[in-house]
């Protein structure tokens, strides 16, 4: 393995993100080639965390843009703070300063509301990490707009002029695949698919992120979650759910799984009523032991 990739993996692990070679390689190439990284995968496998950890590793600020349907340039890029502008005009009514100067005032940076994309562009100091979360939720028009910004990291504001990024931010996009992203966007990005972790990796994740957990409980819990993922469920629990559950069990001072305990805390990892019923039925049928043992 190349030294840089190993180092990135070490740094990410050091920052509390248990990872593997495919992730480390993708992150390394993304920084080396200066291309955005597009991360796809099931909910709760740690897509968003990549950006957070990357920010910590690169020692830069994390700027996050959460996408949703109807997101437009005013919420993503910038907007003039017009109530403040109006107020300023009223206050200045009596002043005898020239009009041109007063106008220049209200179109200065003090009246500009910087939204995440502009923040990333005008950021000073170390290059920030720009996280564009759940980009599949935004509509196609926004995607096209995003392409434009990501391609040269400059923005033209008519009243101010063109703003160019001092240093290119590292960009991470995440998508849950609720709709297909355009080929244009895909081609501009490096692509990384994160699957559910293997038993081994999940165990390491649980141990790292929930320090107080006992060896036995961690092993039982991860095996149980792995067997749940093989079952037919409406909402398959991700790693985030494993961690929630582990934290809850630690808070309850549990050292091992037993049927009653699982029944009580099932809400931590099952978020659908029919799933709850299905799994409860299995546990009542005495299948818990089989679900927690590595062979099952």
């Amino acid at each position, binding site marked *: *393995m*190349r030294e840089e*990739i190993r180092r990135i993996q070490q740094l990410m692990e050091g920052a509390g993100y248990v990872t593997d*070679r*495919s992730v480390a*390689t*993708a992150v*390394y*190439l*993304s920084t*080396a*080639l200066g*291309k955005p990284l597009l991360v*796809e995968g099931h909910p709760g496998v740690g897509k968003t965390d990549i950006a957070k950890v990357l920010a910590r590793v690169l020692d830069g600020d994390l700027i996050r843009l959460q996408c949703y349907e*109807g997101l437009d340039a005013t919420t993503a890029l910038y907007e*003039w703070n*017009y109530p403040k*502008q*109006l107020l300023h*005009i*009223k206050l200045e009514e009596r002043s005898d300063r020239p009009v041109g100067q007063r106008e220049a005032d*209200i179109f200065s940076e003090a009246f500009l509301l910087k939204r995440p994309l502009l923040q990333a562009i005008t950021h000073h100091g170390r290059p920030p990490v720009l996280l564009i979360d759940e980009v*599949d939720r935004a509509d*196609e028009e926004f995607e096209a707009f995003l392409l434009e910004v990501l391609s040269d990291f400059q923005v033209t504001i008519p009243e101010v002029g063109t703003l160019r990024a001092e240093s290119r931010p590292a960009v991470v996009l995440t998508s*849950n*695949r*609720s*709709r*297909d992203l355009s*080929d244009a966007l*895909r*081609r501009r*990005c*490096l*692509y*990384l*698919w994160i699957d559910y972790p293997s038993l081994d990796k999940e165990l390491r994740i649980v141990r790292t992120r929930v320090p107080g957990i006992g060896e036995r409980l961690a092993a039982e819990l991860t095996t149980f979650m792995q067997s749940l993922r093989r079952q*037919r469920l*409406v*909402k*398959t629990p991700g790693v985030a759910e494993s961690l929630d559950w582990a934290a809850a069990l630690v808070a309850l001072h549990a050292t091992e799984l037993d049927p009653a305990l699982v029944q009580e805390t099932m809400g931590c990892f099952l978020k659908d009523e*029919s799933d709850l019923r299905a799994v409860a039925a299995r546990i009542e049928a005495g299948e818990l032991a089989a679900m927690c043992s590595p062979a099952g």
Partner: protein
Amino acid sequence: MSAPASTDLVVHATRFCRLLREEGLLVTPGDTLDAARVLGLVDLADREDLRLALRGVLVHRPEDGPAFDRLFDEFWGGNPAPAGRLRRTRPPSGSQKERLPLSLEQWLRGGERDAEREEALVPGPSELESLGRQDFGSFGDEALREVTRVARRIARRLATRPSRRWKPARDGARPHLRRTLRLSVKTGGEVSELAFRQRKVRKTKLVVLADVSGSMDLYARLFLQFLFALQHSFARVETFVFATRLSRITEQLRSRAYGEALAELAAEVRDWNGGTRIGASLETFVREWPRLLDGRTVVIVLSDGWETGDPEVLGDALGAVHGRAARVVWLNPLLGSPGYEPLTRGMQAALPHVDVFAPAHDLASLGRLARHLAL
């Protein structure tokens, strides 16, 4: 940064990209350049490094992952250093052609002769078949145009539903207060220019799950033409076909000509005219594509309900779809035949979770579909 990739490596990268392209992966010249750059950035003696790195650059969608891995092994072989001898085996394109499902080629030719051969393949009651031939047996250009026309009409209706929300407009009946104020700032707080707003268009989305198993073959043929036309005039359609397993064909239907689209489908969908596992297919849909469903999505299932799997699975899966979508429309071509009652076990399990149960055996019934699709 690292030393530039040697010419040798660039040649290899180019060849590899060409191989990927031959096998149908979307690899642009820009990607090839990236691939060449990547070769200079990783440890070439480490095959896993090389694979992961090239994968990051050349694979843009998860579906392409397995194909990439196969071709990677084929191209770079067991040979860790790509500077070594190239082990390029012929891609198995020839054998793949032979494996094309028969029926699709028949579709493309639309020959009479083939109907006879189909008869042997099609399971289910025989009156079903003769009905199908009656309806769509002679499928000429005229009918094709008609289907396209119906699809356009439906698309227009779906695309012009006003929503509760507003958006800025060039001109209109209602002023946009916020924008007007914003504009007035330019003139020192005096309103001299009005901004307007109008209703947003409500975005209905369609998800179509079409049964293409043997018993549905004749109807699916018409319906796919319909979907093809619909998707061309209305962008928010996701299309899946299933028989024994589910395949997403949205992309294929986007390509230009109908013949091309079908040819592509043939390459993609391997289970044309197999048995029918509706429940398992719907379940796959719920598991793999859950976020396609929301309060503005209408799900259309086209199937005759001849389920060979467990009807309970079908009921559960459709229930899950029903819970999340705005509406579930089940189109059953058999409904068009007099005296048909939905008594099959699959249909019985499905009906509690269906909002609209409608026929789809001829053009008129497709035309009436518009009513059910507008939310």
